[in-house]
């Protein structure tokens, strides 16, 4: 990896240096502590489940929740990254960008440093009508290295259009996408493509770590959130070859798996409004119907995450809106996949919908109406938070204090993000990106400024 991109490596990764005795002891304590914690959670809920004949609803809800949470941890343990079989297919990496003048050169440079045969790798940078110097930065990198092809769209047409333009510009067997604010480890692409040795695999999601880990308390919390989202959630889904979202940070698709769906995906409409975000989840859904979708934990990318609270909340709301839309689609076909994969997917959707109701019941209804303090609920939440933090800690060679922010994140989630689910459902038609000014998904009427496509519909 080049010096510049190495500087982008997260502090979490930098802490993975030489471990001392104390680090080994702490890791051991974390592993034992985690096993005791999860066993305790299973035993506690097993106690209630044994009484299912008298309180069926409570017993079943508890069993579903604990099975879902503990099950994902348990499934992620036997998960293994696809084995290196020396596969080197023809790959095109498409990097769409909009107003990313600060990060685009670094991201493209990380692609030039990839350990992959140059005759089998195309690098396509697509500028989506940026209003800043993104296109100029791309051309500077391309001037220094002719391997980079630059495509400039005349106006801002949205991320999907930019990605689709890149896809149509190549005949490569594997199409990989890297976000313009992400960079890759030198061996990331080689490791990502190994899973395509299985002819049934249509897409593979790479791993993403936070590049700007110590920029603020918001980014520190996201370090553990990203780790859990990938190393626990996607790893568990990958055991059934049913990853439900190949992250836009870094993912690869088999050409024949996505090209038949390209136009449908590009022109997706939800509730009468063009779908302008959630491109990654939507593309994964198209592939998942007929193909296996897996996760490669050893194909590592680093991505820049929101540093401010408002920006982060807007991003999360946008993600929840796309989750709403794509969960409706996923729910219609996932039952045809393996039963275990379907159960995992349906449980995830159900718990996300029910969790706010349970929180209101525990934190407001029962204290006010029945006079029962929510100690058990808070203790349960704390146990989950600690479990996520310990899992993160157990995977670090050296002690990494970010785990504490992961514990704090669970309470932050309860305070802010849990409630976004219903708001996201109610406002699912909104197509604003939220974190950046863009005219994509909007109709610009000359002389009148941008007008929402929603208003035009």
């Amino acid at each position, binding site marked *: 990896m080049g010096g510049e991109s190495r500087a982008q490596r997260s502090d979490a990764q930098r802490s993975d240096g030489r471990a001392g005795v104390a680090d080994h002891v*702490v890791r051991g304590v974390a592993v034992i502590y985690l096993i005791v914690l999860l066993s305790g959670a299973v035993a506690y809920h097993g106690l209630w489940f044994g009484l299912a004949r008298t309180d069926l609803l409570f017993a079943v809800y508890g069993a579903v929740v604990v099975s879902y949470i503990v099950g994902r941890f348990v499934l992620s343990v036997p998960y293994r990254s696809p084995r290196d079989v020396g596969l080197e297919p023809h790959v095109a990496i498409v990097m769409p960008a909009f107003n990313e003048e600060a990060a685009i050169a670094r991201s493209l440079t990380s692609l030039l440093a990839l350990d992959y045969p140059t005759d089998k790798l195309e690098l396509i940078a697509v500028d989506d009508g940026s209003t800043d110097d993104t296109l100029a930065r791309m051309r500077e990198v391309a001037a220094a290295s002719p391997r980079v092809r630059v495509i400039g769209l005349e106006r801002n047409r949205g991320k999907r259009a930019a990605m689709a333009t890149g896809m149509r510009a190549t005949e490569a067997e594997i199409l990989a996408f890297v976000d313009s604010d992400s960079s890759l480890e030198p061996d990331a692409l080689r490791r990502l493509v190994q899973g395509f040795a299985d002819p049934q695999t249509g897409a593979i999601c790479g791993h993403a770590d936070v590049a700007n880990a110590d920029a603020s308390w918001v980014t520190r919390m996201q370090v553990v959130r990203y780790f859990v989202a990938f190393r626990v959630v996607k790893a568990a889904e990958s055991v059934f070859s049913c990853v439900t979202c190949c992250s836009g940070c870094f993912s690869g698709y088999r050409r024949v798996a996505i090209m038949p769906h390209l136009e449908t995906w590009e022109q997706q409409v939800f509730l009468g409004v063009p779908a302008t975000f959630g491109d990654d989840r939507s593309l994964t859904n198209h592939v998942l119907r007929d193909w296996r979708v897996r996760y490669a934990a050893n194909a590592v990318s680093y991505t820049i995450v929101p540093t401010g609270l408002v920006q982060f909340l807007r991003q999360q709301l946008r993600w929840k809106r796309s989750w709403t839309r794509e969960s409706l689609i996923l729910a219609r076909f996932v039952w045809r996949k393996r039963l275990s994969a379907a159960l995992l997917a349906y449980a995830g959707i159900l718990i996300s919908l029910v969790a706010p109701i349970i929180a209101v019941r525990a934190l407001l209804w029962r204290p006010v109406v029945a006079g029962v303090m929510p100690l058990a609920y808070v203790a349960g939440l*704390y146990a989950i938070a600690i479990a996520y933090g310990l899992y993160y*800690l157990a995977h670090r060679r050296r002690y990494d204090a970010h785990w504490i922010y992961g514990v704090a994140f669970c309470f932050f989630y309860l305070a802010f993000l849990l409630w976004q689910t219903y708001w996201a459902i109610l406002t699912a038609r909104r197509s604003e990106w939220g974190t950046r000014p863009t005219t994509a998904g909007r109709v610009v009427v000359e002389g009148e400024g941008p007008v929402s496509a929603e208003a035009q519909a």
Partner: protein
Amino acid sequence: MTLRRALSYAVVPLSAVPLAAAAAYLAPSVEHRVNELRARPSPAAVPSPAPVRERMPTVKRTRRGRHR
């Protein structure tokens, strides 16, 4: 190892203290609730009440028995 780093490591086992405290506090009420639920007969064990028309003759017979 600096004192700060040692304290930072110590947070790992110390984080179990609130959980242990909560478990100790909740254990009696959980045990009480569990015993209560165990003592409650399951719906299958409780005979469903007979329809009124069938029950009426039984009550009458009992009363007659008492009179005798």
